[in-house]
């Protein structure tokens, strides 16, 4: 059995999601290789090479893969996949963007967002916003998989010494070009990798009030998230959104502030180890999943909390 993991990276470093995908891939047993596709991505490939248990790192370093354009990268992965039984990517926006294209090129199904590997062909995955867990079996010889990163603790990052092999194939579909990106720069941990997350909802009333969360986040080393309502209202940018169709998080501590708890939001955070809810509506559904609920006006509770920790 040979498994290929698609690295999530920014050319110079690996994203933690790669290690979650490696951990899932290790469940298959057998050989495990990593593909790093990018432009000037040698540094990321070298970092991938020290992940223990990796056979080799395939490094496809070319300008056409520079911004992970799905049209080009999918052609590359479909090409490289010929030698593998399983291809696994983390279910990040990159993985979600590219992998279905790979699957269709290979005329196989994709198994999206798996949370467990029961056997070589059987997996579990959440459906209907996580209200149901389906056990599914694939009849395809080659499995194209995206893995929910919160379902697997990251594999160790160091200790191995895999070889790095260059992949020279250049696949340029020539139909898409990168224009620009607006990436928020923050000193806080990444939302999906943070051990503490504090999220605000509609109850925050405006974007300025998210400052009330920042002081607490700084003290706890937390990432800041938001409900869809807060993002739709323009309080915070889209990349803050936690939920069924936003980011899936499972930190040690999740603090939901002014969030009512729609099922679409719960789908993104209910696997957190400890959930705290602060809401002035004592009937808010969020309290049904919270380990500790505080019925209070958040504008009084947040400054008190910041002072108390």
């Amino acid at each position: 059995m040979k498994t290929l993991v698609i690295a999530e990276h920014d050319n110079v470093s690996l994203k933690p999601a790669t290690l979650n995908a490696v951990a899932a891939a290790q469940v298959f047993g057998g050989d495990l290789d990593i593909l790093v596709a990018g432009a000037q991505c040698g540094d990321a490939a070298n970092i991938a090479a020290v992940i223990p248990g990796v056979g080799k790192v395939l490094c496809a370093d070319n300008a056409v893969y520079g911004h992970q354009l799905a049209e080009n990268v999918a052609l590359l992965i479909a090409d490289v996949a010929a030698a593998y039984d399983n291809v696994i990517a983390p279910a990040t926006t990159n993985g979600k963007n590219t992998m279905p294209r790979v699957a269709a090129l290979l005329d196989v199904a994709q198994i999206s967002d798996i949370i467990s590997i029961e056997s070589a062909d059987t997996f579990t995955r959440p459906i209907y916003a996580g209200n149901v867990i389906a056990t599914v079996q694939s009849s395809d010889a080659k499995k194209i998989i995206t893995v929910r990163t919160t379902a697997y603790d990251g594999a160790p990052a160091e200790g191995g010494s895999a070889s790095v092999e260059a992949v020279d194939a250049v696949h340029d579909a020539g139909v898409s070009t990168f224009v620009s990106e607006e990436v928020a720069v923050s000193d806080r941990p990444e939302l999906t990798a943070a051990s503490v997350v504090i999220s605000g909802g509609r109850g925050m009333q405006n974007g300025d009030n998210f400052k009330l969360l920042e002081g607490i986040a700084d003290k706890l080393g937390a990432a800041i998230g938001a409900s869809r309502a807060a993002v739709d209202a323009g309080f915070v940018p889209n990349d803050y959104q936690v939920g069924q169709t936003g980011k899936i998080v499972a930190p040690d501590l999740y603090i939901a502030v002014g969030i009512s708890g729609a099922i679409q939001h719960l789908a993104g955070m209910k696997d957190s180890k400890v959930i705290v809810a602060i809401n002035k509506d004592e009937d808010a559904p969020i309290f049904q999943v919270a380990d500790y609920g505080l019925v209070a006006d958040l504008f009084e509770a947040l400054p008190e909390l910041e002072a108390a920790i």
Partner: protein
Amino acid sequence: MKALVAVKRVVDYNVKVRAKADGSDIELNNVKMAINPFCEIAVEEAVRLKEAGTVSEIVVVSVGEKACQEQIRTALALGADRGIHVEVEGRPEPLEIAKLLKGVVAKEEPQLVILGKQSIDGDNNQTGQMLGALTGMPQGTFASEITVDGDKLIVIREVDGGLQTLSLSLPAIVTTDLRLNEPRYASLPNIMKAKKKPLDVMSPDDLGVNITSHITQLSVAPPPERSAGVKVADVAELVDKLKNEAKVIS
């Protein structure tokens, strides 16, 4: 230009879906069905492009059993011009839907294909990308803004780190994210008019597609229950519990 919009019939987003007690399937009896919210955003975007004079005709397509003609009519009431129903029994997989849509694309030759980024039942997030691979078209997934600029489509995408802008050659595929627009409600006169708009029915055979299955659903189960915890009286008690009982802060 012509726009093709794909819509899916799903369980209404307000319904809390449950697994049947015997784990064989989802409980779908007497459950309210609706157009998938992301597909509704796709229809709205096409209608806005038509209102702006960019799109000249909107064709809406749905793949599924006969009942999904209701969702096609909904899209027609929102402003689509005509409908195509590809009649398929059961629950076709994303790859098969993409193959059927490829057949429709070959017949209709749209310059723009708009789909929802995922359906809220299977949560697969695959069909648009697969259609892109099968047709060779570029894709702007998770779109929060699209602009036609000559023979290019400029797409702003919601990605993990923020926003990314791509330029795609037309014809192109767009999958919608939540912030692309806020769909309108259909007015009663438009609902009445929609009943008279043309709706063609096709079979997979008509499109040269042989439906196969790659994935078998063996069972379904509810997720692990999370029991409600305790209410704390004030911030001091909360901090005490987090420090000394849950031990998640120090």
